[in-house]
């Protein structure tokens, strides 16, 4: 009963999402967003028409005006500076708009252009001083704040009466100030457009990268060839321009050049920027953060005002929320990576039946023996980590190595060897196609093709992103083994989508179906995922019927069959359900049966632990990683099974002296060639009763 509950809980509750969601970069903004939601909820409860369209539109107008300025400030802060002069620039550009409209009588488009240019010029002063003359941003913009403000004061002394006297009546001007499109204020539409562009700009466009790089490390950016000074200067120009856009809408809405326009605006904007999570000092920040920060600050100020709160109360509440949010946010950012490392590993429930007996004298197909004692060794000490071995029509033997090479041994004695091709990564599974191209699964890289002349080509490194996956699973992390169908489809397994190449054992601790089988079509060059949720899918072999593949699920201790064609297309069926160890590669035998490598034997301790997810969770949290309970992968065997999944025979090397580990095997002209990922040798075992002329790919596709 209890076990059933545990099973159901782990089957349906996606524990692993927590760690994956937290690993997303946008969760850095989680706290500000959370605060925004709380504030929004609280206001919608206390102000009865808070969520009405009219009220939201009113809020949006002001929020977007400030939002433009916040965007500019965000840009400047991300580039590693600060712009205190925004308030004064706001006032001056507001004046510029109204002066050109009311006093000079310019048409509205020209007014808009003039205002933005005015903002850019004001920003350019900052930009030149800070970017090119290398003045300190804080002190410089503090001084320009004073200068611009006094210039504004002098100007309105002279012109405020002229502006006050005019009541401009242009429909286009009113549209800028109060117009809506489908109920959305004009300013919001422009803001959304600018924000979307800003997001793309910062994350994907070259100048945006440069901005982030300069903020993150000025010297690194310079060394990378970024035009540091120009970029910084342009950021201040952009800040000026964005401020001018905000001021233009403000001018159109209210038409005022009152003396305290923009006073203290820099504080509001800076508060919004920091609250949104954009770090002073540079390098970190996004458009979304800027928006969230702006909304929080404005909602609090306006909401409390609407709730009849006096100015003082308003300030207390605002400051209280700001400080609380800042403290929580700092804790969060500080501990986020630690939390992720604690929660990313999320073991799940896996119950395996009692394994079949393997003891000597226990009988059964798995009974241990010492047949592999007599293997002869190839390339001892000269090769590292040959996970898979393969032989071509000319009896050449190929094996991958840890250094990313494909090594070729020459017959007849396989003493002579050469680096056939260098790819990098970790070559795992291999298979030949009809034209003798060697396809290789490279852990960490994907699927590669090596032409007979040794030329390396990438076949695929990307598949379609699945809809419900939190992690972006389009990147191939651990392509493992493959086989090729007659019609040119390459089926290959990816062992796990949650861990990188060098962390694969952790996947064994989780024992979740994190793996998948992917199909690469050599005819179209397209790649798509065919099966998901497999427990470390490993070996793949096209079955004799040519319509299905057999694949091994390592942590599932099972072999399954998947029909990619024919009447049962799409179906999956279990072939062997309870192996005594962890299956690895599968290959054809000369008699029409299949070879299966068993990489390691199950242990009662891990079998038990797999039924106790919370135990493994505690272990992952408290015990250092190298002392975790991992699947045992050092002794194993080779078994032969038939189409129905019946085990026919098994080959063991009990002492493990000669050939300690087996991850793969190939039958070729009466010999069985053995590979092992932890080995420094290749084994060669003389099979009795085997077809001495069996060449796997000749049998499949005929002689050439």
């Amino acid at each position: 009963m209890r076990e059933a509950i545990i099973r159901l809980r782990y089957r349906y509750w996606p524990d692993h999402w927590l760690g994956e969601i937290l690993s997303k970069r946008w969760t850095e903004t989680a706290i500000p967003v959370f605060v925004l939601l709380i504030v929004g909820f609280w206001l919608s409860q206390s102000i009865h028409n808070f969520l009405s369209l009219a009220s939201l539109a009113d809020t949006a107008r002001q929020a977007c005006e400030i939002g433009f300025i916040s965007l500019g400030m965000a840009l400047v802060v991300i580039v590693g500076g600060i712009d205190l002069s925004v308030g004064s620039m706001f006032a001056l550009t507001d004046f510029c708009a109204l002066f050109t409209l009311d006093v000079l009588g310019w048409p509205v488009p020209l007014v808009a252009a003039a205002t933005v240019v005015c903002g850019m010029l004001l920003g350019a002063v900052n930009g030149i001083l800070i970017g090119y003359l290398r003045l300190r941003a804080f002190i410089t913009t503090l001084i320009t704040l004073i200068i611009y403000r006094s210039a504004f004061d002098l100007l309105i002394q002279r012109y405020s009466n002229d502006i006050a006297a005019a009541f401009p009546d242009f429909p286009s001007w009113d549209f800028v100030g109060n117009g809506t499109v489908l109920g959305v204020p004009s300013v919001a539409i422009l803001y959304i457009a600018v924000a979307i562009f800003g997001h793309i700009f910062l994350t994907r466009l070259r100048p945006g990268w440069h901005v982030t790089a300069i903020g993150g490390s000025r010297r690194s950016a310079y060394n990378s060839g970024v035009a540091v000074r120009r970029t910084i200067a342009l950021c201040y120009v952009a800040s000026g321009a964005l401020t001018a856009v905000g001021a233009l809408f403000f001018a159109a809405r209210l038409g005022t050049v009152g003396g305290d326009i923009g006073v203290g605006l820099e504080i509001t904007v800076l508060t919004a920027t920091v609250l949104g999570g954009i770090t002073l000092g540079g390098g970190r920040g996004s458009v979304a953060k800027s928006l969230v920060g702006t909304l929080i600050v404005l909602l609090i100020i306006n909401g409390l005002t609407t709730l009849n709160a006096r100015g003082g109360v308003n300030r207390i509440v605002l400051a209280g929320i700001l400080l609380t949010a800042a403290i929580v946010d700092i804790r969060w950012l500080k501990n986020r990576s630690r939390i992720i490392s604690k929660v990313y590993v999320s073991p799940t429930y896996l119950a395996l039946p009692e394994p079949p007996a393997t003891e000597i004298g226990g009988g059964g197909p798995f009974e241990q023996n010492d047949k592999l004692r007599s293997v002869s060794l190839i390339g001892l000490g000269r090769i590292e980590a040959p996970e898979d071995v393969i032989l071509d029509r000319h009896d050449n033997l190929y094996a991958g190595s840890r250094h990313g090479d494909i090594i070729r041994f020459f017959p007849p004695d396989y003493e002579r060897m050469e680096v056939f091709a260098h790819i990098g990564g970790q070559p795992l599974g291999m298979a030949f196609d009809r034209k003798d191209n060697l396809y290789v699964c490279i852990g960490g890289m994907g699927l590669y093709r090596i032409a007979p002349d040794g030329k390396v080509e990438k076949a695929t490194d990307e598949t379609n992103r699945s809809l419900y996956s939190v992690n972006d699973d389009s990147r191939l992390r651990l392509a493992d083994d493959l086989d090729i169908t007659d019609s040119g489809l390459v089926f290959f397994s990816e062992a796990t989508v949650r861990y990188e190449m060098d962390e694969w054992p952790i996947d064994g601790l989780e024992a979740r179906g994190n793996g998948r089988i992917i199909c690469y079509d050599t005819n179209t060059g397209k790649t798509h995922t065919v099966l998901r949720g497999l427990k470390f899918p490993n070996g793949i072999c096209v079955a004799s019927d040519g319509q299905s593949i057999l694949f091994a699920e390592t942590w599932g201790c099972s072999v399954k069959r998947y029909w990619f064609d024919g009447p049962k297309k799409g179906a999956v069926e279990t072939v062997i359900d309870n192996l005594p160890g962890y299956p690895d590669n599968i290959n054809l035998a000369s008699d029409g049966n299949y070879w299966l490598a068993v990489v390691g034997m199950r242990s009662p301790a891990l079998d038990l632990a797999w039924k106790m997810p919370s135990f493994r969770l505690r272990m992952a949290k408290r015990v250092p990683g190298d002392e975790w309970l991992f699947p045992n992968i050092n002794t194993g065997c080779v078994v032969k099974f038939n189409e129905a999944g019946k085990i026919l025979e098994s080959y063991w090397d009990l002492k493990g002296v000669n050939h300690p580990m087996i991850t793969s095997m190939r039958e070729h002209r009466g010999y069985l060639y053995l590979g092992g990922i932890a080995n420094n040798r290749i084994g060669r075992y003389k099979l009795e009763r085997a077809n001495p002329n069996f060449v796997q790919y000749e049998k499949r596709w005929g002689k050439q």
Partner: protein
Amino acid sequence: MKRFRITQQEIVFVVFAALFVFCSLFLKGFLTSANILALLQNVSVLGILGLAMAIVVIGGGIDISLIAALAVPPGLVLQMVQDGHSLSSSIVVAFAIAIAFGLVNGWLIAYAEVPSLFATLASGIFLAGLGQAFLFRVEVVQWSDGMAGFDRLGQASVFGVPMPIILLAATCLAVAFLLRRTRWGAYIYAVGDNRAAARVTGIPTRPIIVLQYVLAAVIGCFAGLVLAASVNSMPTRIFNSTLIYDVILVVVLGGIGLSGGRGGVVNVILGTLLIGTMLNGMTIMNLSYAAQNLVKGVVLLAAVIADTFINPRNEETAQQGDI
């Protein structure tokens, strides 16, 4: 190589001297002892605030909440006396509030690790709001009879020297003594110079940071009392003004780098004198307030630009997050 360098401090001194000579030569009534005293008196509160800011900036932070500390506790003194409490108990309460405020600031920055700019920005708003909402009935807290005699703090003079100047000088001496002669002063410099190194050396960095903000709040409160005494009221609306920017200018212009660990009381005095001379000269010239600001800004900008040209910074020496 060293001796060709002129520090920002020296540039500011040169600018100040030039301005002073200029004003003396061309402005009638500038170079009179009465006017010089007026000049000093006008900037004495700014100077005291500058000293408070200097302590924090030398310690590697910044205190935007200084104006709140200037306005609220002294305002409370006036309000409490108005409501019939005794002057002495009111002053005790005010300083207690200032100390508590400094402790909160320090805690936020040293222990909760909120960046000082943001922490003091918010805490300043909080204190101002607290005063506005609960402590004062109106924003300008008026003098009342119970305060009799206290106005000497702002309006009396000793041997012809107005009291605020004497208080500024006294604060200068006290702060200079603290920074130069005491252990805690040495610690403040150490923390501002390299907080990580100070920590590893075994200096109690967090308490020292708290100490800075407490000192700043207390000095700010003191400046507020001087201000209130000299204008016979506490206009708490001063919080909304841009006074804090002037304070930062005095400190930074004087040559105390925002990166911390550098500078001292001399720099504050220099910065204060420069600002004071400029404002006084322009007041004599009867320039409007806006025009005064404009000129002030341009002169400051010139000083900063001159500094950059004389001490150029390049990509090699640029610091990270150097704002």
